[in-house]
């Protein structure tokens, strides 16, 4: 599906080479297998303080939602008014880390340290009764956390 235009058949020589090392500060994505998770670790116990200070004002002190999304609970999804939250809907724990690191807290994205992101992630998982309060979340343990709705997604045929 494309309109006419000529195409270059070999590199044109514009742009500059860059190393993965130099890209590091931008290379923040985390995949479902945990690829991209940085060093560092934390627990929900530590996360609780962070969350109450930096997140609760928008998401509620128990993750029940406020001016921004509810993060906890929600129940089953095959009802007339399904409630989609991290707990009820999200298939991968790694997505919490990836998203919080890139986009939260809302007014100051990418202001948290990696330890802090592990802490917030652990606390949200704990609030959803998915992990115990003192479970250590790091690059190794986080991808092993199985989310309740892990099997809730179907890929469309392509």
């Amino acid at each position, binding site marked *: 599906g494309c309109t006419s235009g000529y195409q270059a058949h070999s590199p044109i020589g514009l742009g500059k080479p860059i190393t993965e090392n130099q890209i590091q500060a931008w*290379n923040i994505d985390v995949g479902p297998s945990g690829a991209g998770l940085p060093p560092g670790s934390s627990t929900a116990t530590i996360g609780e303080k962070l969350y109450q200070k930096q997140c609760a004002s928008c998401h509620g002190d128990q993750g029940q939602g406020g001016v921004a999304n509810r993060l906890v609970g929600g129940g089953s999804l095959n009802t007339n008014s399904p409630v989609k939250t991290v707990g009820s809907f999200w298939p991968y724990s790694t997505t919490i880390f990836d998203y919080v690191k890139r986009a939260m807290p809302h007014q100051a994205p990418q202001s948290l340290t990696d330890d802090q992101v592990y802490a917030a992630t652990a606390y949200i998982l704990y609030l959803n009764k998915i992990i115990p309060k003192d479970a250590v979340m790091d690059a190794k343990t986080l991808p092993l956390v199985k989310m309740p709705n892990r099997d809730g*997604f179907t*890929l469309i045929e392509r």
Partner: protein
Amino acid sequence: INGVISANSAFAKNQGDGFLEVDPWTKTQGSTFVNPPYGLPSKYEKNVVRLLPSPAPTFLTGSRTPLQSLHGIITPNGLVFERHHAGVPDINPDLHKLVIHGLVDRPMVFSMEDIVRFPSESRINFLECSGNSAAELKKASNQTVQQIHGLLSCCEWTGVRLSTILQECGVQPSAKWALAEGADGAAMTRSIPMSKMMDDALLVYAQNGEMLRAEQGYPLRLFLPGYEGNMSIKWLRRIKLGTEPWQTREETSAYTDLRADGKALQFTFAMEVKSVITQPSGMMKLKSKGFYEISGFAWSGNGKIRRVEVSTDGGKSWSEAVLQEPVIDKSLVRFRFPWMWDGAPATLMSRAVDSSGEVQPTMDAVIKAKSANTFYHNNAIQPWRVAANGEVTNGR
């Protein structure tokens, strides 16, 4: 001005005894260069604007195109709908960079000056948010076509084929998916199959002849013809090639389609065949019996519009509308249908068919196939009810 809205009666008054008088504007010099150096719409068109949600929510995320006031197929840049996840960043183009890395032989960084020097390409394509018309799935929730369908626009986009720039980096055969990332405060990300990226993905820097508007991703965005709008990542700063999707928040928590059984469909990319009558449409009023042109838009993310049919009796009978040339792949297409209104209540509908053979479904069919919980990808037929007094309302 809108032929089907009853305007004030100044014209009738002015007619008086029917004798023309020389108008005051003919008897004087007009203003010289009323709008230098960059022009603006006529002051009499000040109501033709994008629509913000009302009452305003805490976090404003979208504005809607006034489809009922558009003519032809091009959406003027000032009226193109917006959807952001962290507001509109202020990016100096001289400082903007695009990084391409991951499964490539040579990771590269490009300045905007590099990017505009590549072979370029322009295309007229629609852009639609996959959440367009979402609220209607549950019940008749809105009144005007701007409220219901306004997350839809169509521009001439100019940029560089992503495949051209990827050539500079050397794509490795194992690359199957790409992550595209914005430089906005959401660092918005989506996973996109390499097949699309190599086919017709465009790195866009201009719309309708001029550089992108800030709210459209200035200075650089991805554009994926026919795919749901949020995937055409704005303020694009990075593309990473990999082997599997990243499962980002915007392809798990959001932009997945929940079914009645509680399972959700993921990676539903193409915006399916759809159409809507914009004239007349909700909250307009037919002045009197007689001739009206029924007109609107049809589009499909799966190809060209092949046919649009119009019904004036609520779907009992259908007749073929005229398609305005040019009929472009994955573009809005303007359809027109002549109608003599006899003053009786009527229900107007349009139904589009695309080159893949898909027929636009009724709302019942959409809900049956996808569930009312699905939220995204509502491409149902939109009925407009015309009352005997000429008032047009949402016929959902």
